[in-house]
């Protein structure tokens, strides 16, 4: 890993000066793609290595899709009324059938998204959709209807790199959100404060930039935002809307929900909050206050154009700084999708891998609470780290007999949130997933660039790891390809990006 060692201060200064006109080179391209997508392949890195940093960032943003490449599961086209079967109007069997149908559809939906991430030619779109899924959080645990979770996902993807104001309005009226944060149940006289609180605390301003009074007043403005249970669409119900004067963030008027969102969008704290969160996603765990302020101002000044914010972040000095390389922890979905993409492994079905990511702590469409997955170092504890390592270990030793635990895995009960059942489901899914793919380590290493086996292993390690390995040995002549790949994947630095 010679190039990393050569990044001495003097050379680095020269490199910065030349960065605007020079091709970024392999290491920078790897960094850019690993941070904005899922584990890049050698060919993908090479394609970007020839571009300048600015060209590379521009290309990424220009080519970002606003829709998925793969067709969604058939059930999303269903149009029947959205009604939970209740004891007063449905039998026990009907209610159980409904429950099982939603669990099944939820699983299909997760598999679909996982697969989209595996095959997309626009990984940034999926990373940003995932980012907004973890921002405008809803969970199928509460929403129940898988087709509403799909509709929300499509809305987030369509606006993922659009403008934040449009996204905020759309996400707030999104049917899954109306259910998830109880907006659809809120009515004048006794407004439900759930959405009003979270929209300020988690979606826009951040803690400390509003009062309890603001929440109560805003909750009145959101009354009437409802759901047409026959069509599954947003519906404004004037009869339950509070038409009175509200005072929110020091402004008074007979506001409705859209007015309140616009008042929030007019506050500088909103741009700061979103920029800070984007920084943590793409740049480093420790946002630089001055840089965030600078970029937030540009973001707000350019009508909340998300591409503008992202472009500024990706072209900031901090993004490229050597000291910020390998400082972010891969999310479980990034780890699973990235590994399969990077190792050129194409599973027949993505479903087991969605369950595997869930076992590592990231169950798509079911974030733990409205704050989303905490992320960062919190992805890694003893339980989740071992789940990650078990997945990587199994992938890199497919020719071995499966460990005994796989054989004795017991049948999982559908719909249970029991930890032990979940653990069993994880083991079974992993077994199914790993058995469905073919990873030939020798062939894969042979495809990496280099004149000698050692050089090819070295190239593979440079591709796979963001930093020097801390445990894995350097490649040597009698290291067979499988043992080498396994050691590299199990190195702690592989958890980083």
């Amino acid at each position, binding site marked *: 890993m010679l190039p990393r060692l050569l990044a001495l201060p003097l050379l680095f200064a020269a490199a910065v000066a030349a960065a605007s006109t020079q091709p970024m080179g392999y290491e920078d391209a790897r960094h850019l793609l690993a941070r904005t997508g899922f584990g890049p392949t050698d060919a993908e890195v090479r394609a970007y290595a020839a571009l300048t940093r600015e060209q590379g960032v521009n290309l990424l943003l220009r080519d970002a899709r606003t829709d998925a490449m793969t067709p969604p599961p058939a059930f999303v086209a269903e149009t029947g009324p959205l009604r939970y079967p209740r004891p007063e109007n449905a039998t026990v069997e009907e209610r159980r059938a409904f429950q099982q149908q939603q669990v099944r559809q939820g699983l299909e939906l997760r598999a679909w998204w996982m697969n989209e991430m595996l095959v997309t030619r626009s990984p940034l779109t999926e990373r940003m959709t995932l980012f907004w899924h973890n921002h405008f959080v809803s969970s199928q645990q509460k929403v129940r209807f898988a087709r509403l979770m799909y509709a929300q996902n499509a809305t987030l993807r369509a606006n993922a790199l659009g403008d934040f104001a449009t996204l905020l309005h759309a996400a707030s009226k999104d049917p899954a959100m109306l259910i998830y944060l*109880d907006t659809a*149940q809120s*009515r004048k*006289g*006794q407004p*439900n*404060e*759930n959405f009003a*609180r979270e929209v300020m*605390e988690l979606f826009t301003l951040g*803690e400390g930039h509003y009062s*309890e009074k603001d929440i*109560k007043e805003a909750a009145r403005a959101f009354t009437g935002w409802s759901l047409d249970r026959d069509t599954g669409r947003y519906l404004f119900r004037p009869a339950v809307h509070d038409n009175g004067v509200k005072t929110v963030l020091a402004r008074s008027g007979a506001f409705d929900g859209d007015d309140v969102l616009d008042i929030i969008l007019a506050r500088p704290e909103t741009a700061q909050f979103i920029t800070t969160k984007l920084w943590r996603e793409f740049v480093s*765990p420790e946002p630089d206050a001055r840089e965030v302020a600078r970029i937030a101002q540009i973001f707000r000044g350019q009508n909340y154009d998300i591409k503008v914010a992202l472009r500024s972040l990706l072209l900031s000095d901090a993004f490229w700084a050597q*000291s910020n390389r*390998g*400082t*972010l*922890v891969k999310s479980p979905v990034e780890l699973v999708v990235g590994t399969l993409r990077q190792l050129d492994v194409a599973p027949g079905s993505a479903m087991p891998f969605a369950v595997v990511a869930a076992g590592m*702590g990231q169950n798509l469409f079911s974030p*733990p*609470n*409205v*704050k989303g997955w*905490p992320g*960062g*170092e*919190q992805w*890694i*504890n*003893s*339980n*989740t*780290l*071992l*789940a990650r*390592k*078990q997945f990587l*270990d199994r992938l890199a030793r497919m020719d071995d007999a499966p*460990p005994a*635990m796989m054989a004795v895995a017991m049948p999982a009960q559908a719909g249970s*949130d*029991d*930890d*032990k059942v*979940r*653990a069993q489901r994880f083991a079974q899914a992993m077994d199914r997933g790993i058995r469905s793919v073919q990873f030939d380590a020798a062939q894969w290493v042979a495809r990496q660039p280099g004149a000698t086996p050692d050089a090819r292993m070295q190239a593979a390690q440079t591709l796979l790891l963001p*930093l020097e390995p*801390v*445990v894995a040995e350097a490649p040597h002549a009698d290291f067979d390809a499988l043992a080498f790949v396994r050691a590299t994947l*199990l190195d*702690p*630095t592989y*958890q*980083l990006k």
Partner: protein
Amino acid sequence: MNRRSFLHSASALAAARTFATPLAVFGPAAVAAVPTHADYRKLLILVELKGGNDGLNTLVPYADPTYYSLRPKIAVARDQVVQLSDSAGLHPALAPLLPLWNDKRLAVLQGVGYPDPNLSHFRSIEIWDTASKSEVYLQDGWLTRAFAVEPVPASYAADGVIIGSSELGPLAGGGTRAIALADTEQFLRRARLAQTSNGGGNKALAHILKVEGDIVQAAGHLSGRTVFATQFPQGAFGNAIRTACQIVANPSGVAAIRVTLSGFDTHANQPATQARLLGEVASGLVALQAGLVELGKWDDTLVLTYAEFGRRPKENQNNGTDHGTANVHFATGGRVAGGFYGAAPDLRNLSSDGNPAYAIDFRNTYATVLDKWWGIDSRDALGGRFATLPFVVA
């Protein structure tokens, strides 16, 4: 090194321990130079009622007409209440706890809260987990800070175990050896994949290396499958209780265990949900007592419930309750002095946002754990002097 200067170097110690872990596996003596005064043979089990359990329907003020006027739809009917006194009684789903109460081993802590309450789930649980003031932001959990003041012996399998949750809460941050697991057998099977190393690097990498070291340490000490006569309840919480008992059964020990039961954020259709959850709490605690008695550990265990907040006295329009403040909690164990502590919320005297004042600062319960249960001076860990409560018999 006296205790004050030791505290000031707690973060340095945390950093040192990060890299000393592999050493500690083979040579506990390297860490044993730090004197330990705390009695960590005594175990703390925290039970988190996540989402904010509704205390007013947990300990019901069934003689108070204001309670029934605030909750015309979701109040627990007087004839359903398991009466503990002439003014308060338990939700019927908690009836299995009655023998503990009659045994004087169930302490009912009323009106537990803190000044200037925050109604956000995330911020309020952070306040509880870090034992901070409402306006102060701290990183480390209160147990992490306590264990920095008085380290848990290096020979222990871990400082604490978090069961069935990925959030470390009171054990977050610093140099605590916190193990999160769902199930002991699965943990031991997988632990062979962890490897120790002496590398350093950035903060995220250091964290991963520390977790690897903690796994190696814990796996080296936790072993065996204890067979219990106790029947553990079905479901996630019952399994967490079973796992807790499996960990307690290991001779090398841990100082603290946290189990979590989620789902208490009952904004809508509260009665059925809360009844189911409280039923799980009750059967879980009864099984925990039985398991600990079987292990001979009941007298050395203190069980304490907590949650981010209580819920608002006035019901909402969806047969539920919104975020509130002061709440009721329970302490139990072989050395708990049963009875009522604190004061029932005054429902005729609510704040402008409709919530009652607190009677017990939650840090008084933490001080009780630290000073009286373990014998650790709580002042440094809690950032101030908080009085202890007499619910623990030394």
